[in-house]
């Protein structure tokens, strides 16, 4: 009997609470959540199409309409020599340019983050200019530069160009990390008898290494995906995107979809692994 008033009260209260809460959920965040997912789906749709058509059982050069499922293109991945070579060129250029840009950019980023020096403003300015210049213009100016010098275009000029546009990105990432670096850690090393050289390699570098690494990864991604600058500076070298661009005139073979899929999967795996590693490191 005594419980009765309680049971009468309770529904009334929860009703009131339910009235307030879900209403806000549905109108605001609920709609935005659906919206966000919609946009994400939109972003992923072309990737899905690309992956799907890597399994398309098309018979000829043209891979346009769905003709059934097959795995044969995975088996014949390296059938098109030039495509394979393009991919290899892309990988080699990306590795070399990301490492070189990693080294050069780390120097700049470290100096900017660590020291105050005359001319740092100009360095910042030129970095800002390279990051914000249209790729098209960078590629075009490099082309005119090489042509004026009478330098033949090829893998070397391509690599030079990729290093050029990657440096500033690496430097920016490294600078951000160095700026948040506790200076006293370096002093502690010096205090404990380490020379400047030892301090850098034993202490500073390992600490900024994740930043350097993500800078190098960024440079690698920029390089392997680059089309615009490469189009101007590759000369008769062919990279993966350049080959695809050239092949559009006669149709993209399914191998391109397969390679695109594999690059995508590899990229995602590396990124996820890197992310999990650094997150675990943070949590520990």
């Amino acid at each position, binding site marked *: 009997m005594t419980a009765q008033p309680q049971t009468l009260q309770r529904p009334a209260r929860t009703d009131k609470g339910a009235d307030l809460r879900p209403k806000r959920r549905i109108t605001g965040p609920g709609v935005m959540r659906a919206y966000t997912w919609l946009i994400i789906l939109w972003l992923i749709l072309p990737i899905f199409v690309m992956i799907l058509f890597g399994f398309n059982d098309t018979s000829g050069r043209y891979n346009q309409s769905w003709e059934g499922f097959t795995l044969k293109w995975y088996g014949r991945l390296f059938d098109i020599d030039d495509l394979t070579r393009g991919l290899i060129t892309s990988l080699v250029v990306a590795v070399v340019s990301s490492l070189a840009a990693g080294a050069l950019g780390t120097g700049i980023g470290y100096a900017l983050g660590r020291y105050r020096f005359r001319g740092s403003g100009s360095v910042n300015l030129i970095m800002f200019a390279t990051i914000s210049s249209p790729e098209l213009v960078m590629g075009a100016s490099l082309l005119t530069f090489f042509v004026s010098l009478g330098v033949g275009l090829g893998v070397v000029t391509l690599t030079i160009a990729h290093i050029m546009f990657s440096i500033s990105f690496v430097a920016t990432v490294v600078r951000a990390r160095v700026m948040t670096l*506790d200076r*006293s*850690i370096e*002093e*502690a*090393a*010096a*205090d*404990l*008898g*380490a*020379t400047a050289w*030892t301090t850098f390699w*034993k*202490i500073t570098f*390992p*600490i900024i290494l994740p930043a350097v690494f993500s800078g190098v990864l960024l440079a690698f991604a920029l390089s392997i995906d680059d089309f615009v600058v490469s189009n101007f500076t590759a000369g008769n070298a062919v990279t993966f995107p350049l080959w695809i661009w050239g092949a559009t005139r006669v149709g993209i073979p399914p191998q391109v979809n397969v390679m695109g899929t594999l690059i995508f999967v590899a990229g995602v795996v590396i990124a996820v692994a890197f992310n999990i590693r650094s997150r675990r490191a943070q949590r*520990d």
Partner: protein
Amino acid sequence: MTTTPQHLAGNGRTATGDHPAIRFDGVVKNYLAHGETVAAVKRTDMEIAQGEFFSLLGPSGCGKTTTMRMIAGFEEPTAGKVYLDGRDVTGVTPNRRDINMVFQSYALFPHLNVFQNVAFGLERKKVARDEIRRRVGEILEIVSLSGMDKRAPREMSGGQQQRVALARALVNRPRALLLDEPLGALDLKLRQQMQVELKRIQREVGITFVYVTHDQGEALTMSDRIAVMNAGVIEQLGSPREIYEKPASRFVAGFIGTSNIVDGHVERIEGGLALLNYSTQDRVVCPVPGAVRRGDKLEVSVRPEKIDLHRGVPPVTATGGSVLSGIVNEVVYHGTSTNYTVATAAGADFTVFDQNAANADDLADRGDRVYLTWAPQHSYLIGV
């Protein structure tokens, strides 16, 4: 830790004893900021003895950290010389000075574990591997971190990190250990624990500690001697008691603990005691040196806990001492004591700590008329 490891205590170096551990000879440090020269440390001479627990105390920006960094070698003096153990080390880089430091932020190497952190200095000195393992184990025991050598710094509490920083410096058996506000990041309870701990460790290893802090309580608790710095100048250098009881300047008096400061002209001098009168019944009595003459203007300080507070009637007992009347402005209950702010007839507001002893019934209230009394020896003449 009842026995001190031989090599940590003596090491045959501190025993030489002829030279002070650290000596500043006319050291000046100027910075160039926006084209202007700013003096961080004005001409300073000082000596820190072997095995001493020495504190540099002062507010932020007083130059204490710069002083310490000049000892460590992170800053070079603009003028003057720094001696370690009688050797001129001016211009010697930090990694070549036999001195180690505990940083305010601990500055532990985040990518190295406890063992690697502590072993870092020994590795630089190319100490044999076995020796390193032994000494690191030993020092970790001293700082009570045995068995934690595989931990990463970020897996440890603030107090533990602090101990690692300490061990990392101590393991090198430096001629002196510099500590830059090492307890600043710890909470109150832990800080108090660590103060005791630090003092214990210092006693055990017998190494000269130079301790930089802005916390006067900390400095008073641990130090053998304290240098109070202000605006690039050491205002007073002495034992904690000297500094507390006999502040050399108004700054020191105010910075160390709470001081009540009154000024007034000397009415008369009697048996080494000067009398400053504010009215017929309001007077301050202070011991003075012979040089003080009648009519001189004096600044007298008295600590709040030395003062007795009487409610209502003027006291008859305090005939030979100081008496000031006033009105209670503020009463703050502190548990062990009650703090009063009293507007006195001498013109200055006085702070009085009244111990909440057995007879806690004579509490004054806001607006009450009270009399403050204290013995002549508790008055201290500033700036003598």
